[in-house]
């Protein structure tokens, strides 16, 4: 190949590269625009929003809408802000995620390393749980919560979310442990380790990536859930998503868009943080299942 044509080739590849970057940047702007609008308008006084330009930067910066959304805004009939509901959500999400992850890991462990007659049928049924729509389980769940006296409590919500998530967490862990060498379990058996000792000392230490995947998955799903939250919560257990809806729909006086924007960002913040902190492991964990060895 002559030097000239090589030159053309290089110039071509630079050109292609430039186009790719331009397209990528356009997409990034397109995706980030809503977030930009929310952030910008949550930092303006309400007057500025009413004047019309949603895309403009604030002329007068203020964090008052954030403070209001957090602690004084009218939610339904009470002027308490989102804070108590944020706490409700945390109290619901943390135990539900922990419970479903631990049980999913145990299920995966049993289904791959302590196989029993009909284990594949059990796994198939659990998989089916992943495909059952929320709406179908609403009424049976309500009935069970009523019978157990857990209706309207945070414990009840934890239970529903943990059980509903079990299909997914079991699927994740089973597929991960399927590739885990069974000889290690056998070696530990000969060493005299018990069922739980093998789980805790041999399997769990190697489960980092899949735990991250499961926790992110469960955290975002449960944190963002609206249907179970609005169906099963009582006066003292309303989660943040439902409260946000109440905030936006509170019909006293003017619509405080800046406060609504701030509240929406507050509600999304935890999932954002979880993704940013552990997103790298998330991808790695997903890959670990896909590519063996």
């Amino acid at each position, binding site marked *: 190949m002559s030097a000239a044509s090589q030159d053309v080739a290089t110039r071509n590849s630079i050109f292609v590269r430039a186009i790719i970057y331009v397209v990528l940047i356009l997409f990034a702007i397109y995706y980030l625009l809503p977030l930009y609008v929310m952030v910008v308008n949550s930092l303006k006084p309400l007057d500025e929003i009413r004047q019309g330009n949603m895309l403009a930067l604030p002329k007068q910066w203020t964090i008052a809408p954030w403070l209001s959304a957090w602690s004084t805004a009218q939610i339904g009939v009470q002027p308490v802000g989102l804070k108590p509901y944020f706490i409700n959500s945390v109290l619901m999400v943390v135990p539900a995620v922990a419970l479903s992850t631990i049980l999913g890991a145990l299920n995966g462990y049993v289904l791959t390393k302590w196989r029993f007659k009909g284990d594949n049928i059990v796994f198939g049924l659990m998989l089916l749980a992943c495909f059952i729509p929320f709406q179908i389980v609403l009424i049976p769940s309500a009935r069970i919560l009523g019978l157990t006296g857990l209706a309207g409590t945070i414990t009840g919500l934890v239970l529903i979310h943990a059980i509903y998530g079990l299909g997914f967490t079991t699927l994740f862990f089973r597929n991960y442990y399927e590739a885990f*060498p069974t*000889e290690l379990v*056998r070696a*530990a058996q*000969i060493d*005299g*380790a018990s069922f739980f000792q093998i789980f805790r000392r*041999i399997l769990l230490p*190697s489960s980092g990536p899949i735990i991250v995947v499961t926790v992110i998955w469960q955290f975002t799903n449960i944190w963002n859930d609206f249907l179970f939250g609005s169906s099963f919560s009582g006066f003292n257990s309303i989660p943040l998503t439902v409260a946000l809806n109440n905030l936006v729909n509170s019909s006293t006086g003017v619509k405080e868009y800046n406060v609504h924007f701030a509240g929406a960002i507050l509600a999304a913040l935890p999932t954002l943080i979880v993704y940013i902190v552990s997103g790298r492991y998330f991808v790695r964990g997903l890959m670990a299942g896909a590519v063996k060895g």
Partner: protein
Amino acid sequence: MSFLKISNLYKNYGQVEILKDINIEIDKGGFLVLVGPSGCGKSTLLNTIAGLEPITSGEIAINGKSVAGLHPSKRDIAMVFQSYALYPNMTVAGNIAFGMEIRGVPKDERDKAIKQVSDILQIGHLLDRKPSQLSGGQRQRVAMGRALVRDPQVFLFDEPLSNLDAKLRVDMRTEIKRLHQRMKTTIVYVTHDQIEAMTLASKIAVLKDGILQQFGTPAEIYNSPANMFVADFMGSPAMNLLNCRLEGGAGSSLSVILDRPGDQPLALPIKLANGALGAYAGKEIIFGVRPEALTDPDGADRNAKSIAEGECLIEVVEPAGSDTFAVTKLGGKEVVARLRADAAIHAGQKTKLAFNLDKAVFFDPKSQLRIA
């Protein structure tokens, strides 16, 4: 009294019979090798001894006591796995001491035991490393260390050397033999490599398709294989198994008649034929002769009582340094002869070969069982 005794053992996976009527016993301090092609059930048999797999019927007894229903950790065994199965999250020392830790052995005792074992295996400098930081040979040693530290009644080895490269494999083989001579603990050792089986074993059990083909000392297995499978499987290069006709009988002496391409059939008179062979006079049988029993006349065993010689057309000559292998054709098959390194032979020429008939074996072509 036998120390490890397996009687009438059957093992099924669902409807499939994996092990069929296995009977094996080995004395205290013995070295039992289970050998056979891949998939024949060796690992399964070893796992049933370890208690990692339940058996369908039959009995396994260690030191006179049945181990039925005993948990693997209660059988007083230690196992080395083919993949080594080192706990990836623990250091070498942690791996070796894990069993003791579970049993609640105090820390200073554990450290003493780790020290002792790591001295024997020369892995003292590796104790703080994780398995992922070790070479294949080092991992193998650590796996051995984890077994040694238990000081069990029986060691179980599942193809411990098959993941090592050729040179290291030979070294470790010697080392395992040395360890056994020193500790005198009973060992059950699984391999698909017949050389490992011959060099290590005090008793060999040859398995095929879950059926015990033959159980005996290495010499018995090698010299008097029970059937054609064992004859072919044990020994390298493999035994020559040739179609031939048996002539004579009823008073006259017997001869083996082998067809040769482009020549008269070769007749080998058998001087010391036993009675069983006589019944096959006039019939087609399989004549088995190992390459080292088929030599140049000068290289033939001087103590052999029955040697027959015959001219054979050499097709290929393969000098191997210590010996020269020659390929000829008899009874319609290629035959490997093992000659002295400096034997004067050339491909395409006829050469006189000596058959050591003391070492020859005969098989029934239908049942494949040995006649004599």
